[in-house]
């Protein structure tokens, strides 16, 4: 089980309470106030509240949650579906896991509020297969809710409002975190992303109107309904309200999770994690999970919200902060990153299947001292051939880290080629 967050606000407030993952414990801590508040409003009003709150998806893309909900058809003769994306696989991200482990009812309450707002009759929570304890906790929580009348026919005695939730286990594939790859996988197929349109709201899971949100996104919803928009907007920035659970990993004294307002400076988040390893200095930081462009130490003053990060050429992603100190060979880091994307490319688009392989292969030979003078131009030409050329955003995510590495640390790659090998003896082993 994960260590409870070192800094807490509303979302993780009760994560030190061992009973919070049970229905009794959740109710004792004031659970289901958000759902009760939602029931006092019409479904459209609930969507409006979520829109006004400015809540943005916490799965990486940062899309407006209320707006997404409003895409669901108002009337449908078919059942509408909610999908909760618990396929957390972005390297450096481990926040959804702790929500599933410690606060499963926050997710389930958020789903019920979304179901009330959108008229969905069924929810699937798709959790990556490796997350055994989170799956167990969610299944137990769902079972408890059926027993107590929070699920099934007439949720909490509300006539005509029926809802079912199924917890579905993935089976080990990063691409199933992409929403249409997830839907394919949920349907019992290879998790290869779909061409859009049609978008999920028109034709999603099993061809039914579907809304997909991330675990953390759903978990924020009950608090917005229970405590109101002004309260929620009291955290974070104008464009990115609320808190998020930042994960800090790599070369810091105290890696872990920290719930902080969006817009908290990157340097402050790293300080919460005890700062860089003693006796070392920071060389590079990936701010939002491995797909996001790396930043040099001169950029650590950046506020961690999408509107500020995009000005610096990177993104918030999932808020997974990866710190690399001065011992780190960044060509080696790029070999690890390159291997990951090569291994996880689903293979259906040539640009991605071939491009990820090329990046990995070229970085490996540079690191091994077999780099060619022409490799720099070759490497630099690859991202442009991948980004925006494929069915899903995986190729973009694979292109960005390389692009940023070359932008900020090109000299280190060139140095490897000129010297015929690596000159970072203290770096992590490959």
């Amino acid at each position, binding site marked *: 089980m*994960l260590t409870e967050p070192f800094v807490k606000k509303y979302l993780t407030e009760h994560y030190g309470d061992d009973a919070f993952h049970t229905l009794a414990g959740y109710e004792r801590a004031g659970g289901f106030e958000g759902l009760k508040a939602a029931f006092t409003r019409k479904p459209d009003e609930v969507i409006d509240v979520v829109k006004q709150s400015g809540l943005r998806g916490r799965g990486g893309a940062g899309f407006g949650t209320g707006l997404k909900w409003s895409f669901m058809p108002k009337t449908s003769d078919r059942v509408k579906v909610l999908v909760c994306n618990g396929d957390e696989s972005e390297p450096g*991200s481990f926040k959804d896991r702790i929500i599933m482990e410690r606060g499963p009812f926050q997710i389930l309450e958020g789903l019920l509020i979304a179901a009330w707002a959108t008229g969905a009759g069924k929810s699937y929570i798709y959790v990556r297969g*490796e997350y055994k304890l989170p799956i167990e906790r969610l299944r137990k929580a769902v079972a408890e809710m059926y027993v107590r009348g929070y699920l099934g026919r007439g949720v909490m005695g509300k006539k005509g409002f029926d809802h079912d939730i199924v917890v579905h286990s993935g089976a*080990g594939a990063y691409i199933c975190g992409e929403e249409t790859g997830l839907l394919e996988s949920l349907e019992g197929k290879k998790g290869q992303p779909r061409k859009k349109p049609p978008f999920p709201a028109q034709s999603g899971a099993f061809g039914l109107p579907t809304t997909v949100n991330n675990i953390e996104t759903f978990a924020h919803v009950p608090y917005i309904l229970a405590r109101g928009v002004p309260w929620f907007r009291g955290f974070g920035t104008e464009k990115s309200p609320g808190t998020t659970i930042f994960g800090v990993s*790599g*070369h810091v004294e105290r890696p872990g999770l920290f719930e902080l307002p969006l817009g908290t400076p990157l340097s402050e988040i790293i300080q919460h994690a005890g700062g860089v390893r003693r006796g070392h200095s920071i060389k590079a930081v990936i701010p939002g999970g491995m797909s996001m462009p790396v930043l040099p130490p001169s950029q650590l003053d950046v506020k961690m919200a999408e509107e500020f990060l995009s000005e610096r050429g990177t993104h918030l992603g999932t808020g997974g902060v990866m710190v690399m100190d001065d011992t780190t060979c960044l060509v080696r880091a790029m070999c690890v990153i390159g291997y*990951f994307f090569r291994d996880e490319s689903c293979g259906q688009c040539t640009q991605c299947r071939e491009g990820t392989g090329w990046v990995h292969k070229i970085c490996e030979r540079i690191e091994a001292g077999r780099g060619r003078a022409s490799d720099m131009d070759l490497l630099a030409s690859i991202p442009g051939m991948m980004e925006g050329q494929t069915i899903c955003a995986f190729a973009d995510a694979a292109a960005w880290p390389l692009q940023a590495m070359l932008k900020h640390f090109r000299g280190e790659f060139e140095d490897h080629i000129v010297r015929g090998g690596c000159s970072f003896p203290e770096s992590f082993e490959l």
Partner: protein
Amino acid sequence: MKPETRRKIEELYPLYPHKRGALLPAIYLVQEEHGYVSPEAARELAELFALKPVEVWEVLSFYNMFYTEPQGRHHVYVCTNLPCSLRGARTMLKGIEKHLGIHSGETTSDGRVTLGHEECLGSCGTAPMMRVDGRYCENLDLEKALRIVDELE
């Protein structure tokens, strides 16, 4: 497959609008019974789901957690993605390889342990770590990891 496994699979159908939604959970049930999915079991699954055998096989071969070959009695998977690597995961994996006398991806000759490495397991704050038979073992070093590996029957 045992009649009981078949019954458990059939119980999954109503959870999904199309029966095929139950395929991934069904594969897990077959694996629970045999430890892996043989070509014969895949054909049985295909029949049960009214699919062509290749449609089951392409699903099996797409996902890391499905096995089409017999496995060791225990699975030990070390996360070697960047956050874990920065904290020594690859050095730890090499130490486990040396200790067991096998490479990542292989099984010990007595069939006790299948060793492997995996991409990010969502445990970056407690790195390095490994997944042992589905259980997360976190905040490791080589010594702790070897103790865990040696305790496996």
